């Protein structure tokens, strides 16, 4: 009944990556399960945002003011986020190239593509910080209402409507007119995209750690798997951005 499988297994461990009864590296299996868990984390954040956006737009629509005050149209700059999405998607491509280079044991190429991935990711985070600062100045804050700048025409049209203050309050200060709309759009937007940005930042640290580790120990047979794991997580945070970009910015 007993066998020497233990010894055999142990000796093999010195030669090839640790593969278990599923035929998969244990860390990879664990990371896939973690990604499954993270999917529900982001699904909850995205659904919360969509619920409150739908409420705000329904209220504004039935009041007949959605064309002036839709927070998506008013705040979210599709040009900037398209650039950001492109950067992040490009980083997924460079990640694939980095992994391919590591499998070919071409460490020079790996260094180039891994660093390209890190820099693309960092510019995404930089762009997101810029977007947040910009939105803050535009009146979208971590608060249960937003204060949107109005064009002269919009202000004229809205002030002629005599609107319920629970839907929108108009403010005029000199040249600048704004509309204050009670809405959780800003709160849900910043929490959702903020947690995504945090994940991207963690991904950058991860990829950087892998980069340093591979540079210090280029002979370790674990390297391709270390790189693949970082890449797996990286592709996941990219994919979350694809979902956020499609559901919140595009539709």
């Amino acid at each position, binding site marked *: *009944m*007993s*066998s*020497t*499988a*233990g*010894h055999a*297994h*142990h000796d093999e*461990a*010195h030669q090839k990556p640790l593969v*278990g*009864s*599923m035929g*998969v590296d*244990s*860390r990879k*299996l*664990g990371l896939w*399960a*973690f990604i*499954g*868990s*993270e999917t*529900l*984390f982001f699904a*909850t*954040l995205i659904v*919360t945002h969509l*619920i*409150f956006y739908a*409420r705000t737009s329904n209220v504004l629509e039935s009041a007949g003011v959605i064309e002036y005050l839709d927070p998506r149209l008013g705040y979210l700059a599709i040009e900037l986020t398209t650039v950001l999405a492109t950067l992040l998607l490009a980083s997924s491509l460079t990640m694939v190239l980095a992994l391919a280079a590591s499998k070919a044991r071409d460490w020079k190429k790996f260094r180039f593509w891994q660093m390209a991935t890190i820099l693309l990711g960092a510019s995404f985070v930089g762009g997101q910080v810029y977007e947040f600062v910009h939105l803050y100045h535009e009146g979208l804050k*971590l*608060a*249960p*209402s937003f204060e949107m700048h109005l064009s002269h025409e919009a202000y004229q049209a809205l002030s002629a409507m005599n609107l319920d203050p629970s839907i929108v309050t108009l403010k005029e200060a000199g040249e600048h007119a704004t509309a204050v709309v*009670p*809405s*959780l759009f800003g*709160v*849900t937007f910043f*929490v959702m995209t903020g947690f995504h940005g945090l994940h991207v930042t963690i991904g950058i640290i991860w990829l950087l*750690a892998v980069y340093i580790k591979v540079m210090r*120990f280029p002979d*370790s*047979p*674990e390297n391709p798997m270390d790189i693949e794991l970082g890449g797996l997580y990286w592709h996941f945070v990219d994919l979350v951005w694809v979902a956020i970009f499609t559901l919140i910015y595009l539709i």
Partner: protein
Amino acid sequence: MAIAEQHIAEAQTTQGAEKEFSWREWLATVDHKKIGIIYILSAFAFFVLGGIEAVLMRIQLGVPDNTFLSADIYNQLFTMHATTMVFLVVMPLNVGIGNYVVPLMVGARDMAFPRLNALSIWLFIGGGLLLYLSFLTGGAPNQGWFAYAPLTQTQYTPGQAVDYWILGLGLTGVASIAGALNFIVTVLNMRAPGMTLNRMPLFVWMNMVVSFIIIFAFPTFTVASIQLLFDRQFGAAFFNPAQGGDAVLWQHLFWFFGHPEVYILILPVMGMVSEILPTFSRKPIFGYAFVAYSGVAIGFLGFIVWAHHMFGVGLGPVANAFFAGATMLIAIPTGVKIFNWIATMWGGDVRLTTAMYYAIGFIAMFIIGGITGITLASPPIDLQQTDSYYVVAHFHYVLFGGSILGLFGGAYYWFPKMTGRMMDEGIGKVQFWLTLISFNLTFFPMHIVGTEGMPRRIYTYEAGMGWEIWNLIETIGTFLLAFAVLLFIYNVAKSLRNGEPASNDPWDASTLEWAIPSPPPSYNFLNLPVVNSRRPLWDAKYPHAAGDDHHGAPSKPSQVRYEYTTEDSPGAKDIHMPSLTFMPMILSGGLTIASLGFIYINQAILGLPTRVASYVFIAIGIAMVFYAIRGWVVDSRRDSPYLGHH
């Protein structure tokens, strides 16, 4: 026989010599068995605390118009009692026994990620201590364990208690997800050669199902509690209807987690019972596949029934009908399990040990809780009984009558494996009857006062409602129950000192943990076992019956002690187990300290201006986290089969 006994005696003397207690070996351990024991001991300490809270509440309710506790203290006690029992007792007791037993059952040397496992235990302890720290810093959480909005908004619950609750449970939640990932990989990837999924012991099956439930259910709660934290600390108003938030959204998010949570509490215990019953009936489990896959079915259905906790909200007839129907469906896989357990005993050569008493008690009490559960699944009935003591009776029958009785059974069953000593069966049986009777004295009358209209969570009631006698009986029952727990502690202490030495396989069981010494060596198996059936150890002990997939064990216990491993084998020196490391503990300590700082982010504390003390705590915590991550990398490199030698 004589040779085998000699082996065991030798093993014990060598262990006796090794057994010099060292704090370092426990606090820096990455051994799944030590971590399991730390889980069990810390969860048991919380069980005593939660029990004290229950006794205090029952003293208050023992007589009408009592003034023993104030309303606010009472609110704190019922909130902490439930939070403790759910998150700090039943979950970690399941995880603790699972941690100890699952790697042994699948024939592995440790969990898949031993250091991550250590992180889980210290995060759990950090989160639990953070939660209990609130008692000393201005009062414990008093909003109920479900934390319904908008009661949790700062204008209704000022102070930091709710923040302690959010961050304390946040830390234990991270521990749970990390632990679940560890179980998933261990079960899927570390099984001994030949142990296919359909040959895994049912306790392993249920731990795997529960781990999947945890990784999919917990994120929703994590997000909801982060959103609540933003409401409280940054004025976000997610759940504040006065500012456009949605109180019912909290209920959806909470129960989307909260209902699967109750299966997280019960399924591992069902797995324990599915091990105990066949061993002491000397028969294989009846309908193995049905028991395993009905657990999977319960796991799936658990995700589509959450709104049965919300019938009182008034979600409309379509939603109510759907959630009522889905909830009633769960009775089918649950019933399948119950009938299979009963059929397992049917015609078996039943040995009534204490563990077996508890397993049978579990079935009986769980059936009562299950039946009241089915009645509560019907919206018209639920609307009559929601928020009454009937509901309290229902969930105590499944969580105490179910989970805790099953856990006592598991404790009596695996105590010899964990400690090398038998528990006192005489005291055990007295303790069982005392527990069973006092449990029913405490909780059965709650069905009656519940249907008579006594609401939950009231801190006192007027005389003359017809509830006095039942409440008095409940209080007496609670004291007896507390005595039963003390008797258990006495039994453990006594058995640890002078219990009869346990052999490898005192119950003549069929699963792999009984193939190795009690307690097992750090590496568990010298040679990884090869598995040919669902009952590898019975195959080995009764080779004439092996190959027949329905064989049981002969009615007389085996005279042959089959051993996969011996202590004195020279091969043991070649097994490399991961080294001790304090880094998981430092990492979780850092997260706990940073969380404590975060609680006071808008407060002036310790005589310092607003945020200063808070930022200091957060900075220290984060520094510890980074130090520990760096140390973790260094320690893991030392153990790497590739880099360790460089």
